[in-house]
């Protein structure tokens, strides 16, 4: 049986811009790449009345989420002509203005990178068991819903 290569997806806390820069820089020796597409999810300070979201706390069903990320990865390589793809998702607390999701696809041609990136983002939102709890400035909280 083929050994699954484990790609670490979950990151404790926010995804820092420097981490993204490093991820980009690592591709400079893959000289057949012509296009990268990156999606970044940033935590919004949504307002409800006088109150606003100050952070989201992410939890996951870790084992199932990793299987789903693996499946999404395999499907992306099947459906798109990709050279690389990387997914990073935060767990724990991420403040408003910080980044909680990075999807990063690379291809010879731009259409593959762009279309794959978008498809992967949709799959993550829909299929991966991760939950965000919105923490408000008055210390109330509510479970986030995706649309």
């Amino acid at each position, binding site marked *: 049986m083929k050994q699954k290569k484990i790609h670490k997806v979950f990151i404790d806390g926010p995804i820092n811009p420097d981490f993204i820069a490093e991820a980009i820089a690592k591709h400079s020796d893959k000289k057949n790449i012509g296009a990268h597409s990156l999606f970044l999810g940033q935590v919004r300070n949504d307002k409800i009345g006088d109150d606003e979201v100050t952070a989201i706390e992410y*939890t996951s*069903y870790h084992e*199932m989420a990793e299987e789903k990320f693996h499946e999404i990865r395999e499907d992306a390589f099947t459906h798109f002509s990709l050279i690389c793809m990387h997914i990073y998702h935060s767990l724990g607390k991420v403040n408003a203005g910080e980044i909680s*999701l990075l999807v990063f696809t690379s291809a010879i041609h731009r259409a593959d990178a762009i279309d794959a990136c978008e498809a992967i983002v949709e799959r*993550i939102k829909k*299929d*991966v*068991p991760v*939950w965000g709890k919105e923490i408000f400035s008055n210390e109330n909280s509510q479970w986030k819903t*995706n649309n």
Partner: protein
Amino acid sequence: MEINVLTFGQVTDITAETSLKIPDVKNTDELIQLLEKTYPALKSIQYSIAVNRKMIQENTMLQNEDTVAILPPFSGG
């Protein structure tokens, strides 16, 4: 025979436990009936069910040591 039940998000808010051991249930319908009886608030929320990390849509037979996860709507990203 014993089933491991895992809860997440709003479901954990209701059960107050992230994992439960449930004996003597043959299938997921029976398990859900039992859980909704024990935690009536479950009836008022949306959730999906995964058996051994696979989403199920229909009543599914359970084996000893199976893991059933009660999953509120995902909100990652």
